[in-house]
């Protein structure tokens, strides 16, 4: 009776934590409630873990508590130390750990099952463990490679080689065959192989781990955010799979929620870049424009400007739009930009930020950075909102953005970004573009915007340039 009661309590607690996860995600629909949502979700996690620790028969508490402490310290240390610009890779690392843990738990459950019950695995257990193992291992190693690329410790280029797809297919085949072996448990060998039921699982894990590396290595560094979102989805699915292994509803519900979330983010990112997921994962993207092409467009058409001139323009401007891009993140220029916006706003200038959905390297990347620099939420305008206003804008300051303001997207059908909606900054009276050189952005193509008559280039590092402008502006007041 006590036994049953305790199981009921645990399951109700799991239900409660599932509700808190759902509510937490629902609260993420608005910045005002998002902090609370994250806390709600964390409370859900605390309840699920706490109840598990309290109710299950814990034979080796030292191991458990040790693991929790070590993991908690490492996690907290990483979270506290990381810089905003390194966020993508950190999320990648965490995510990989989650996936890896799922694969290990599924494996440990197989080991335990064998030790306790012996005999062959029930069908559902074996299938779930195989699925969870493959997905989890791919997630762990794929995420590590992705994080390495984002952090610059692994070649960020698209590493392509002939026979690449054959290698990946072969690895997947090995993993799947090992999985089938685990599931089918060929009867003819059963007497001899019972003791060996587990090894197929580790063969599967090994193959899937190498597969994870091989899948991500060939993808260009700039596509890593998509890969990380996808792997996020995978780690959710791995957790759900482990939930099937353990018959645990909390894992199934929470894992599936995340699986769906990651999948949707992936699709949104691909859509915003106007590319298919297949193209991101397996396609060859990232050929660099030839210098001749660039010369042809830029030669003799580039007008340079200086912080002083920009400051003078701003003095008379009524409406200014700032368009940030990946370069702002690289230069860590968000504070200088925010200060400039605040100064202009204080002087009664109508200032807004025009934020493209895939500016930067993660969805919402620019918003996070600008929010960090205390830019008010309602100053950040989305593409559809800001685009109609460019024709009434005096000055547009493009800082470290390139592809997201490239008119070729609308004009040239053969360009790799063709069809991607872009910010039509060229419609403003004057466009100032701040970047370090004329080198292309992520997509590797030239940008005719730079050569337009009403565009002025402000060459230099984003942070320094913006700081110069701010100083000029302050001096002249």
């Amino acid at each position, binding site marked *: 009776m006590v036994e049953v009661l305790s*199981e009921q309590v645990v399951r109700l607690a799991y239900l409660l934590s599932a509700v808190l996860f*759902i509510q937490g*995600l*629902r609260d*993420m*629909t608005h*910045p005002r409630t998002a902090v609370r949502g*994250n806390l709600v*979700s*964390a409370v859900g996690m605390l309840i699920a*873990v706490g109840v*598990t*620790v309290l109710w299950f*028969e814990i*034979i*080796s508490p030292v*191991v*458990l508590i040790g*693991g*929790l402490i070590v*993991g908690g310290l490492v*996690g*907290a240390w*990483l979270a*506290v130390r990381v810089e905003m610009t390194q966020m993508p890779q*950190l999320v990648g690392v*965490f995510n990989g*750990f*989650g996936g890896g*843990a*799922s694969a*290990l*738990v599924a494996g*440990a*459950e197989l080991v335990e099952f064998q030790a306790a019950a012996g005999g062959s695995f029930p069908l559902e257990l074996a299938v779930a463990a195989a699925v969870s193992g493959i997905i989890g291992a791919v997630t762990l190693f794929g995420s590590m490679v992705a994080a390495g690329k984002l952090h610059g410790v692994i070649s960020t280029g698209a590493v392509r080689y002939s026979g690449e797809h054959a290698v990946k297919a072969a690895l997947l085949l090995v993993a799947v065959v090992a999985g089938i072996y685990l599931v089918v448990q060929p009867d003819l060998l059963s007497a001899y192989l019972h003791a060996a039921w587990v090894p197929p699982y580790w063969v599967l894990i090994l193959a899937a781990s190498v597969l994870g590396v091989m899948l991500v290595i060939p993808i260009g560094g700039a596509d890593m955010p998509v890969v990380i979102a996808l792997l996020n989805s995978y780690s*959710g699915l791995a*957790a*759900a799979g482990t939930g099937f292994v353990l*018959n*645990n*509803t909390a*894992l*199934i519900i929470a*894992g*599936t929620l995340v699986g*769906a*979330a990651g999948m*949707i*983010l992936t699709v949104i990112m691909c859509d915003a870049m106007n590319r298919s997921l297949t193209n991101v994962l397996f396609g060859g993207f990232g050929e660099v424009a030839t210098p001749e092409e660039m010369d042809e467009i830029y030669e003799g058409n580039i007008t340079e400007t200086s912080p002083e001139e920009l400051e003078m323009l701003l003095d008379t401007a009524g409406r200014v739009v700032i368009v940030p891009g990946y370069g702002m993140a690289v230069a860590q220029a968000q504070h200088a930009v925010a200060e400039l916006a*605040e100064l202009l706003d204080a002087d009664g200038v109508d200032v807004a930020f025009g934020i493209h959905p895939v500016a930067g390297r*993660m*969805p*919402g*990347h620019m918003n*996070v950075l600008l929010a960090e620099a*205390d*830019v*008010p*939420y309602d100053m950040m305008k*989305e593409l559809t909102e800001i685009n109609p206003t460019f024709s009434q804008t005096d000055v547009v300051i493009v800082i470290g953005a390139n592809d997201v303001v490239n008119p070729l997207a609308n004009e040239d059908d053969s360009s790799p970004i063709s069809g991607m909606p872009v910010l039509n900054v060229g419609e403003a009276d004057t466009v100032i573009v701040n970047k370090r050189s004329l080198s292309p952005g992520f997509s590797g193509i030239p940008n005719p915007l730079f050569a337009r008559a009403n565009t002025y280039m402000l060459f230099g590092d984003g942070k320094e340039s913006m700081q110069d402008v701010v100083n000029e502006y302050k001096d002249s007041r």
Partner: protein
Amino acid sequence: MTDFITNVTLFVLAAFLGYSVITKIPATLHTPLMSGANAITGITLVGAVVVAGSGATTFATVLGFVAVVMATVNVVGGYLVSHFMLEDFHGGGRRDG
């Protein structure tokens, strides 16, 4: 505790629910959403706790220990990172104050 078809049913409902809820989240919040969702994946910690604590065999206990460490990193790190990011968003309104 539950059987396979029940599990599939829960899976299907959660998938629909995840889809409906996530599509309502604005692009602005996608980065924190990603790290928040990522923290939720750490739910596998629940499984890791059971495995590590029950210590049926030494091998399983070792696996469990490693799994607990990894999952805890994911949970603790994930929620903290999301919290820091979202606090900034919150701070984005500071200016009115």
